[in-house]
């Protein structure tokens, strides 16, 4: 334990000698037992020097430390001294602190008391089994995630059926609000996107087909690629970007502020109140948005074909009606409800996974967008294979 020692009369002279020198100094004297003389400023600026000086102090006998000439001591300096005390203690010898100013003794006392004694072991190296375990856990987590999405889909279906059976419980106002948010507000960006895609397809297609003198087939190229694949796929990707994130953010922030828990205690069903209007709105709006995208894409293609190839709009229309069947449009639009379910379920599920901190809200929002877009593309590939197999 540090305590101001009795030999305070010796201190001033040494302090005078060294008063001008702020560097921490460690000197050993061994007349009548080992005595360690400390001087200078024992603070954070000189702690590296101090520690180096203390490292050579022998720990084979009890030690007296003369702190009379110490000009300043902060917790960093005290930490170095406490380390010395701990080493001596481990060797079974005592330390006596002498001539310390009361303030210095207090700091030293405090630091010695709170010096963390444990030395953490470094993290063990990963063995092969650890890696296997990590892989296994990741696989199970992936499967569980998929199961949770299925559970969310089931929950939505259940509540939707219930709403159909008991229409009075259904929240029409919320549905209309979300239809406006998800559908109407997305029209401008969807139209612009589809128009530009039509323009680009017409331009690139005509420059390739012209080499074979088959310019007129550009109509088939535009119509089939937009109506069957691109119109609905790109619409779904845009909607996934703006709506899945909006769902996650809205539900997630309610989850974060315990509003979802409050709903439970008030007898409101979050699935009924939050999920059904959102996913249903998406289910209703995505086919309509897809149709709008188809029209805008064809318009862009027709315009470019007219400018680039001189293919008149009348000619374009005739070619379109002759060359492309209605089932091409239907194949494209048949994917819309599935994409809508994927986007809605992923968005709502991610929202419910938000914890009570802001980082998780941000993380889940971006995760929802990535998962939704990825799943939409995977589903589109599955549709392609499926329709190819049944020969549509």
């Amino acid at each position: 334990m540090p305590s101001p020692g009795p030999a305070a009369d010796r201190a001033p002279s040494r302090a005078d000698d060294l008063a001008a020198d702020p560097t921490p100094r460690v000197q050993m004297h061994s007349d009548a037992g080992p005595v360690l003389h400390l001087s200078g400023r024992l603070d954070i600026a000189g702690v590296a020097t101090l520690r180096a000086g203390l490292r050579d102090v022998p720990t084979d006998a009890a030690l007296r430390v003369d702190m009379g000439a110490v000009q300043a001591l902060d917790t960093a300096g005290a930490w170095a001294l406490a380390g010395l005390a701990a080493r001596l203690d481990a060797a079974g010898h005592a330390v006596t602190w002498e001539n310390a100013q009361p303030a210095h003794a207090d700091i030293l006392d405090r630091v010695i008391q709170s010096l963390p004694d444990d030395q953490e072991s470094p993290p063990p190296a990963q063995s092969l089994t650890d890696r296997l375990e990590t892989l296994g856990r990741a696989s199970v987590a992936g499967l569980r995630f998929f199961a949770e999405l299925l559970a969310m889909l089931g929950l939505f279906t259940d509540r939707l059926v219930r709403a159909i059976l008991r229409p009075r419980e259904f929240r029409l106002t919320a549905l209309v609000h979300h239809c406006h948010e998800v559908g109407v507000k997305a029209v401008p960006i969807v139209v612009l996107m589809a128009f530009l895609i039509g323009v680009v397809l017409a331009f690139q297609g005509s420059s390739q087909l012209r080499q074979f003198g088959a310019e007129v087939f550009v109509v088939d190229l535009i119509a089939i690629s937009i109506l069957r694949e691109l119109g609905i796929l790109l619409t779904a990707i845009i909607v996934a970007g703006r709506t899945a994130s909006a769902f996650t953010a809205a539900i997630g922030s309610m989850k974060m502020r315990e509003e979802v828990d409050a709903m439970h205690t008030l007898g409101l069903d979050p699935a009924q109140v939050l999920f059904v209007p959102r996913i249903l709105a998406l289910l209703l709006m995505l086919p309509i948005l897809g149709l709008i995208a188809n029209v805008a894409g064809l318009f862009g293609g027709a315009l470019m074909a007219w400018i680039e190839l001189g293919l008149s709009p009348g000619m374009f229309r005739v070619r379109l009606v002759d060359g492309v069947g209605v089932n091409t449009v239907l194949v494209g639009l048949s994917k819309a409800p599935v994409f809508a379910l994927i986007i809605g379920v992923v968005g709502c599920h991610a929202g419910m996974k938000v914890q009570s901190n802001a980082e998780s809200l941000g993380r889940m929002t971006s995760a929802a967008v990535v998962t939704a877009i990825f799943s939409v593309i995977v589903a589109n590939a599955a549709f392609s294979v499926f329709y190819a197999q049944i020969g549509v």
Partner: protein
Amino acid sequence: MAETQTDLAIRVRGLCNRFGTHSVHEGLDLDVRRGEIMGIVGGSGTGKSVLLRTIVGLQRPAEGQITVLGVDKSRASDDEARALERRWGVMFQDGALFSALTVRENVEVPLRSVPGLPADIRRDLADLKIAMAGLKPVARGKFPSELSGGMRKRAGLARALALDPDIVFLDEPTAGLDPIGAAEFDTLIRGLSRSLGLTVFLVTHDLDTLHATCDRVAVLAERKVLVTGTMAEMLDVDHPWVRDYFHGPRARAALADAQAHSTEKT
């Protein structure tokens, strides 16, 4: 006032803070002596936190002079202001830890500004500060989101203490803590202040904290410091708000508690 300039850690004169037409402080004067624990109390909206933020320079005052550790902040050069900032530590209400860093890395942030400090010493000093703030070693590697509110406050305190400041500013240190945790925090602040010679500027609502830790109390009301003095002196102040605050049922309970503690000790 009998204090000379050098005895004062913080000296505020004629401070005015306005938000638009709404005035929070008008001609506020405050003295905080070196080494004391000064509690700032006041009703909601009396600008306790605004005062703290103004003194540490997060809020520019409309008028007034603020001298901290003998440095007039309005006249100090950038270098002086930076040197001054390293002589105080601030603990925000919820710790305000950097969420991307672990507790240890958070405490190491201020230590990185010390030139020539080896990384292993920096780590050990951070661990020491974490232990001094009363956190267990397992908390070192955790991220702020994995800690409870009380642990975040302690980690915030460890970071505020990292550079051995002369003054620590504590904003509602016991808000949101359970009574046991709050009492531990009071003891911790008192102990650290006494052993490290800290001046503590403490904004609080907690009457128990005032009784347990503060040397003096300043009451903010009517847009200025209405009265400063010890807790005992507060009981004699004849102002409606001060009387309600220090004589209310909660205040009496806290007082009885504090007296019971002091008789236990003797």
